[in-house]
C-alpha cells in the first residue's frame, strides 16, 4: 500500500468540464464537404444506378460551391481566430488556401466527372479485384463507379482541415482523412489496371510509413513541449531550458511526413509511379490539391511552431530544397512518358515552393501561396490535355506518340504548348510570375541560404525548360508516327476545366496583381 490513489476518469473530468467553443461559420467549408461526402455515400447506396452519376456530380459541385462561398464569406468578415479550443486556426493563409482548394477542387471535379471520353467513365468500381480475373473483365465492361465523388469530397474536406489545423493531432487526423481516399482513388483506373493497383499500393505503403514518422515525431514533440498545439510548441521552444534533442528529432520526423506529401527529395520516389498509374483526372487532382494542402500544413508548421528554430532547420530544409530542384529537373530530362515527365516537374516545383517557404518572411509566405494557386491551375489543365490524346488502349502517354500532334490537332497542341511554356516559366504566363515572386521573396531576405537557393532555382529552371520544349518541338516539328493517336473531342466538363486552367494561367501571367495582393494581405499566421 503505497498511498497510491486512483482517480477514475469521472473524477478527473468532473473537476472542470468545459466544452470548447465551436465557430460553426468558420468551420462551415469543412463541415459542408464532410456532410456532402456522407450524403454521397448514402446516394451511392440508395439511388438508382442510372441517375447516380448525375446526382453525385451535382451534389459534389454544389457542396464545393457552397464551401467556396462560405470561405469567401468568412474572408469578407475578416475573421482571424482560433476555434475549437486551439485546434483550428482560421486566419489569412487558411482562408486563402481553403479558397484555392475549393476552386481547384471544382476544376478537378469537372475532370473526374467527365464521361464523354470513355464509355462508363475512367473509373471501375472495385479496386481490389485481381487483374485479369473474370470479375475484373466484367467490371471493365460495366458502368463505372460513382464512389469517386464522395471520395474526392472526403479528401477535400481533409485537405481543408489540414491547412486549418493548429495542432499536430488535428493535423494528423486531417492527413489521414485526405490520404486514405487518395490511396483508393489511385487504384480505380479503368485502363491498365495492374499499373493502377501498383501505384495505389506503393502510395499506400510509403504513405503509411510517412504517417508513422509523423505520428512518432508528434509523440516526441509532445514529450518536449507537453502539448501538441503549435503555439504551445513555439512557447516551449522559446522558454526551454532542457536539451532540444526531442524538439529537433520530433521536428525531423514530422517534417518527413510532410515532405513526403509534397514529394520533396529524398521522399519523392512514389511520385512518378503514382502519377503514371493513377487515373489521369485523379493525378490532376492530386498534383494540384494535395500540393496545396501539404504545403499549407508545412508552411504553418514551419512558420508557427518552429519559427524560433529557423536558423537550425534552414540548412537541412535548404539542402532538401536544392536536392529536390536538382533531382526533379535532371530526371525530368530523361523521361519518355508524359505523365512521368509532369511528375518530375511537380517534384522540381516542390523545390521552388520550398525556396519561397524558406524565406521565413511575409513575402515568402505570400509568394508561396500564390505559386500554389498558379501551379494548380496549370497542372490541372495539362493533365486535362493528356486525357484527350488517346488510342484504342486508352490514353497515349508515351512521348513518341505525341509526335506530330500539331498537324493532327493544332488547337489542343497549341494549348499544350502554352501550358508547357508556363511550366518553363516564360513571361506572360503564370509560371513566370509565380517563380519571379518566389525568387524575389527569397532574394529580398538577403541572406546566404536564400540566395544560394535562388541560384540553384534559376539553374534548374533552365535545365527543366529543356524537356518541356522538347515536347513542344516534338508536337510541331516531328513527323507523325505510323499509328498516331487520335485527339478525342473533349466533353463539356473537360472543355470547361481546360478553359479555366488555361485562362487562369494566362491571367495570372498578365494581371497577377489582384491575386498577389490577395495573397499578400492574407499572408499572416496567427498563433
Amino acid at each position, binding site marked *: 500500500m503505497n498511498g497510491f490513489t486512483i482517480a477514475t*476518469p*469521472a473524477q478527473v473530468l468532473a473537476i472542470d*468540464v468545459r466544452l470548447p467553443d465551436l465557430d460553426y461559420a468558420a468551420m462551415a467549408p469543412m463541415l459542408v464537404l464532410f456532410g456532402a461526402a456522407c450524403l454521397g455515400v448514402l446516394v451511392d*447506396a*440508395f439511388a438508382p444506378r442510372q441517375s447516380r452519376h448525375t446526382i453525385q456530380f451535382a451534389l459534389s459541385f454544389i457542396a464545393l460551391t457552397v464551401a467556396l462561398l462560405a470561405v469567401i464569406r468568412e474572408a469578407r468578415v475578416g475573421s482571424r481566430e482560433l476555434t475549437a479550443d486551439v485546434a483550428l486556426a482560421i486566419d489569412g493563409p487558411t482562408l486563402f488556401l481553403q479558397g484555392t482548394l475549393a476552386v481547384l477542387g471544382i476544376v478537378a471535379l469537372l475532370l473526374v466527372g467527365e464521361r464523354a471520353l470513355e464509355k462508363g467513365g475512367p473509373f471501375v468500381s472495385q479496386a481490389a479485384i485481381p487483374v485479369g480475373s473474370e470479375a475484373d473483365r466484367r467490371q471493365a465492361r460495366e458502368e463505372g463507379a460513382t464512389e469517386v465523388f464522395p471520395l474526392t469530397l472526403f479528401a477535400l474536406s481533409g485537405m481543408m482541415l489540414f491547412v486549418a489545423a493548429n495542432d499536430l493531432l488535428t493535423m494528423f487526423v486531417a492527413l489521414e482523412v485526405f490520404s486514405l481516399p487518395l490511396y483508393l482513388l489511385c487504384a480505380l483506373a479503368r485502363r491498365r489496371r495492374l499499373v493502377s493497383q501498383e501505384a495505389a499500393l506503393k502510395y499506400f505503403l510509403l504513405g503509411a510509413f510517412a504517417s508513422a514518422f509523423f505520428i512518432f515525431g508528434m509523440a516526441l514533440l509532445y514529450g518536449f513541449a507537453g502539448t501538441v498545439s503549435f503555439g504551445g510548441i513555439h512557447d516551449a521552444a522559446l522558454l526551454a531550458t532542457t536539451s532540444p534533442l526531442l524538439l529537433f528529432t520530433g521536428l525531423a520526423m514530422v517534417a518527413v511526413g510532410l515532405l513526403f506529401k509534397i514529394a520533396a527529395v529524398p521522399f519523392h520516389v512514389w511520385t512518378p509511379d503514382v502519377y503514371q498509374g493513377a487515373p489521369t483526372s485523379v493525378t490532376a487532382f492530386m498534383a494540384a490539391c494535395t500540393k496545396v494542402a501539404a504545403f499549407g500544413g508545412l508552411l504553418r508548421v514551419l512558420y508557427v511552431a518552429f519559427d524560433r528554430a529557423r536558423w537550425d532547420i534552414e540548412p537541412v530544409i535548404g539542402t532538401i530544397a536544392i536536392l529536390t530542384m536538382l533531382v526533379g529537373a535532371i530526371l525530368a530530362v530523361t523521361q519518355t512518358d508524359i505523365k512521368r515527365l509532369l511528375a518530375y516537374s511537380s517534384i522540381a516545383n516542390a523545390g521552388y515552393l520550398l525556396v519561397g517557404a524558406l524565406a521565413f518572411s511575409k513575402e515568402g509566405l505570400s509568394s508561396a501561396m500564390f505559386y500554389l494557386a498558379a501551379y494548380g491551375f496549370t497542372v490541372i489543365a495539362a493533365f486535362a490535355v493528356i486525357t484527350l490524346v488517346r488510342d484504342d488502349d486508352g490514353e497515349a502517354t508515351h512521348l513518341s506518340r505525341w509526335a506530330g500532334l500539331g498537324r493532327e490537332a493544332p488547337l489542343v497542341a497549341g494549348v499544350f504548348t502554352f501550358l508547357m511554356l508556363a511550366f518553363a516559366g516564360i513571361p506572360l504566363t503564370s509560371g513566370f510570375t509565380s517563380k519571379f515572386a518566389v525568387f524575389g521573396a527569397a532574394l529580398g531576405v538577403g541572406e546566404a541560404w536564400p540566395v544560394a537557393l535562388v541560384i540553384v532555382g534559376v539553374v534548374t529552371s533552365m535545365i527543366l525548360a529543356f524537356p518541356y520544349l522538347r515536347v513542344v518541338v516534338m508536337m510541331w516539328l516531328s513527323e507523325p508516327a505510323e499509328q498516331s493517336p487520335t485527339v478525342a473531342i473533349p466533353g463539356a466538363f473537360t472543355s470547361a476545366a481546360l478553359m479555366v486552367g488555361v485562362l487562369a494561367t494566362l491571367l495570372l501571367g498578365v494581371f497577377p496583381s489582384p491575386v498577389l495582393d490577395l495573397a499578400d494581405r492574407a499572408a499572416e499566421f496567427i498563433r
Partner: protein
Amino acid sequence: MGGYLGSYATLGLLLAVGVLFFLVAMTANRLLRTNRPSAAKSTTYECGLDPVGGDWAQAQIRYYVYAYLYVLFAVEAVFLFPWAVIFDDPGFGMTAVVEMGIFVGVLALGLLYAWRKRVLQWT
C-alpha cells in the same frame, strides 16, 4: 505488491501459473504416453482417403471485408467504452450524447453502405 499496478501483476501471476500448469501437464503426457510413430499415423486426415496434393490449401478469404468492418467497429468500441463510463457526469449532458450519436452515425453509414452493396451477403 500494492496499489494500481499490483492488481495487474496479479493477473500476470495467474497467467504464469496457467503456463506452468500446462507445461507440467504436457511433460507428464510426454513421459506417460506411448510413442510408436509410423508413416500412416503422420498423414493428415482426409475422410479415409490418402490426402492428395500438397499440405497447403489456398482458401479464398471471402470475408476480408468483414475484417475491415470489424476493425471499424472494434475501434468504435474503444471510443465508446470511456464515453460510456462518464457520459452522464455533470457537465457533459446532451452534447456528449449528440456528439457520440454523430460519431456512431458516420460509422453506421459504413455498415449501411456495405449492406446495400451486398457485402454482408454470404455466398
